[in-house]
């Protein structure tokens, strides 16, 4: 009886599944077809603030630039995916993404460690990925034709940081801590190597996955009394680290890479991080000449300030739409491969400046910034001062 009952349930489930299957209904087959753009970023968990910004930035760009494609008879949609900042979730999502034939471009991810394995999946079908935030060099150094980014690179960002530490802060010794992820450890290593070259003493280099108790790491740091502490990682770990460092009475200057660039840093660490420096491969929207209108639109539509990378996601999505337009000239939904090729040809004057990709998918001329936290009020994150701004071309392919 049991097995009969089970079979009944199974049949019922299957029927339901087929009935509910999206796209199976003939009603949707109007117009020339649907074009979907997917975002992949952490929408839940400790880094959701940044991930949500990427999704909303893409949403805003679609609303603004979908006109031409809609006139041509296509329906344009955003499909957000939550990669939870975890590589396994990102890869599982990307398998779903490549299975949905309507998705012609992916905007994402936030974390390089998630983007690298996920883009291996996109590559199988030559689905273009335009990353707003992945700064690890490996992302584009693999030379995949479908992988691009509108932000800068960690091998440059790390050097920008150490140059600032040596030149402007005039640090004598640095202590480096990282979060053991592809991104955090990567940028920390670039920082370390260049700091050594510049004659700074590297007092320590530590990796940790700890999220709450940094006491045992901070005790040796305090004893060694470095003039600067660099944390290679993301704000949800960096903020409590710096907070506890300051509470322990450590007097060193604090510094971090663009992973620190979120208002949650001051929300968590408060006064401890005022005056802290962070480098960024994505300037604050307020510093970008073309972004004034974007910030206003964003605030009007979503009722909050854009987080860092929202502007990059906006540009990335605009490029994707432009490429799709170019590839859809025949009036048909273009193939993924055509879109990938078209992305590399797009010249876009975006809100983060002129964007053009080189043969690896790096931005020809990327912007780098050093910023300083101005206030312990998270609302005022946008007021952080730019203390240095550079435009640096991506290093050419090595090996």
């Amino acid at each position, binding site marked *: 009886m049991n097995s009969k009952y089970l079979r009944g349930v199974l049949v019922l489930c299957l029927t339901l599944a087929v009935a509910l299957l999206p796209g199976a209904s003939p009603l949707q087959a109007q117009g020339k077809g649907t074009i979907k753009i997917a975002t992949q970023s952490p929408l839940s968990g*400790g880094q959701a603030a940044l991930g949500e910004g990427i999704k909303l930035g893409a949403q805003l760009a679609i609303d603004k630039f979908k006109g031409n494609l809609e006139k041509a008879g296509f329906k344009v949609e955003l499909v957000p995916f939550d990669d939870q900042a975890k590589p396994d979730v990102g890869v599982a999502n990307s398998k779903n993404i490549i299975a949905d034939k309507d998705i012609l471009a992916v905007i994402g991810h936030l974390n390089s460690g998630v983007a690298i394995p996920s883009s291996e999946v996109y590559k199988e079908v030559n689905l273009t990925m335009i990353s707003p935030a992945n700064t690890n060099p490996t992302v584009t150094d693999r030379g995949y034709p479908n992988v691009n980014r509108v932000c800068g690179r960690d091998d440059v960002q790390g050097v920008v940081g150490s140059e600032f530490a040596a030149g402007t802060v005039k640090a004598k010794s640095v202590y480096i801590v990282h979060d053991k992820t592809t991104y955090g450890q990567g940028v920390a290593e670039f920082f370390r190597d260049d700091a050594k070259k510049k004659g700074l003493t590297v007092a320590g280099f530590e*990796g*940790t996955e700890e999220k*709450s108790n940094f006491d045992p790491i901070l005790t*040796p740091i*305090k*004893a060694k009394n470095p003039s600067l502490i660099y944390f290679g990682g993301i704000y949800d770990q960096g903020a409590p680290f710096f*907070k506890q460092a300051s*509470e*322990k009475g450590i007097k060193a200057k604090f510094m971090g890479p663009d992973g620190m660039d979120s208002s949650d840093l001051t929300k968590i660490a408060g006064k401890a991080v005022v005056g802290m420096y962070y480098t960024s491969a994505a300037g604050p929207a307020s510093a970008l000449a073309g972004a004034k209108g974007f910030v206003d639109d964003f605030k009007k539509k979503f009722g909050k300030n854009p987080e860092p990378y929202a502007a990059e996601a906006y540009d990335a999505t605009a490029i994707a739409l432009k490429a799709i337009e170019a590839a859809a000239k025949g009036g048909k939904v273009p193939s993924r491969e055509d879109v990938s090729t078209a992305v590399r040809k797009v010249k876009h004057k975006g809100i983060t400046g002129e964007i053009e990709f080189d043969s690896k998918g790096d931005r020809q001329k990327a912007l780098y910034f050093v910023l300083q936290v101005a206030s312990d009020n998270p609302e005022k994150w946008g007021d952080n001062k730019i203390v240095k701004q550079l435009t640096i071309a991506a290093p050419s392919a090595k090996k």
Partner: protein
Amino acid sequence: MDYELLIAIFPQVLLDGLLLGFMYALIALGYTMVYGVLEFINFAHSEIFIFGAFVGVEILLSLQSAGWLERLPWVVVLVLVLLAGMAASGLLAVTVERVAYRPLRAAPRLIPLISAIGVSFFLQDIIRLFESIWRNAFNLVYPTMDVMNHRFELTETLDVSVRSLVVIVAALLMLWALHALVNRTKIGTAIRAVAEDQAAASLMGINVNRIISLTFLIGGAMGGAAGVLFGIQYSLINPYTGFVPGLKAFTAAVLGGIGNIPGAMLGGLVLGLLEAFAASYMSLLTGGAFGAEYKDIFAFSVLILILIFRPKGLLGEVVRGRA
């Protein structure tokens, strides 16, 4: 190698380790007491622990937004938050026992274990859901009370913050109170009787169900207090924060001899110290070859060694066969 540095930081590392150890000890009590009476591992205890931390942060945040945080004396705030965390976690533990474990008491030993894992996931996500609707936040931060951050510089390399003293004093008080309760009161005698033999205890007129509920209440309250202290000490909590300390505290309970109350305290302290020393000294001693990230490997290797030579834990509770 820099021997002076190694010696200079020793007292500070010892203090860090003790702090962590006391926290593990408080959490470990919940595991060990439940094991003592039911011979079952309450894997939801790590969420009961972090639930206390969340109740604490909610109270502090509402006091802050009402402007009372500065006006009330900090000791009053502290006692209030600790008691609230204890009450909330204790009641949660009792509810979990009533809903998820008691109906399964006659089932094979593995069944309630699975139920406990389920409860653990359930609580994690309920807390996450609630906080995301209520505050639209994942990470919550304990508001800083300036008094608590005040540090006493004892030597050049050793200082103690008021916060750390609070944690140590509160933990010691609670451990002492629990010890007295279990060993010197009628209720304590009843708990020990139920732990020894449920059937005989009920023949002596002890209401076994009530004593089991009480055990969960006390264990949960200790966990809740640990949660509040954890939040005060390390400031950042999220719904999944409880998992790792919970796992470590469970280990501490096993290390001390699961089912044995002084054992849990000792196990917590030993594990906390091992972890702190490993994290602070590993990279100094190995010249950076093994960094702080190997602290758990070191701590757990020592643990395996101890258990190889003392399989019943440091204080070796005799694991009785069920009568």
